[in-house]
């Protein structure tokens, strides 16, 4: 089993970056790898609750993010300074996450075998 981390850094509806990251996290979980997902920069906005992507013609993949735990993805990390920049607090997020500072993010990176940025 490998430690694999997906790093998301694009805003949620910018092309299909967030959906590609979701698919990648799900597939590594499905084949029993130790997967974690780090939300950085504007990617943290994908976790904001009460969005209606279908209003802009976009499939509501945010629903799947809410079910990450069911798919055995429980290591979800969110960059503290990104939350600050976009004026979001933990209570406004759609799921329970671990909020991490940059030092904690560097430690998480150190532990990984593979890292993919999407």
């Amino acid at each position: 089993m490998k430690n694999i981390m997906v790093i998301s850094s694009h805003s949620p509806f910018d092309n299909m970056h967030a959906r590609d990251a979701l698919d990648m996290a799900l597939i590594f979980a499905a084949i029993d790898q130790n997967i974690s997902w780090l939300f950085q920069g504007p990617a943290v906005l994908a976790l904001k609750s009460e969005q209606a992507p279908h209003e802009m013609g976009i499939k509501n993949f945010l629903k799947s993010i809410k079910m990450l735990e069911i798919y055995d993805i429980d290591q979800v990390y969110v960059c503290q300074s990104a939350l600050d920049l976009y004026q979001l607090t933990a209570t406004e997020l759609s799921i329970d996450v671990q909020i991490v500072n940059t030092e904690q993010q560097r430690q998480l990176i150190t532990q990984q075998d593979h890292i993919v940025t999407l």
Partner: protein
Amino acid sequence: MNTLHIFSKPLSTLNSIAVTSLISETDGILLMGEACFDQASYQNLASKQYVLSHCLVARGITAHPSFSSISDVEWVNLIDNAKKSITW
């Protein structure tokens, strides 16, 4: 209005210093798409600042005090009344 500057991404994902230096005080800016999430970063760039209402609703957010929320028809009128627009 001479120039309407149109943004559709968060400011941090652009070469922000270069772009913002090209906005004149009498220009306007319009936020659409993903830029709407980042009104706070864009708030002091021009005297007239707009955000597309449709794009706010889809993201479950509201207009920042320094931005006027406009409809799609007002969007067309805004561009029609400006000499030209720049999509960054």
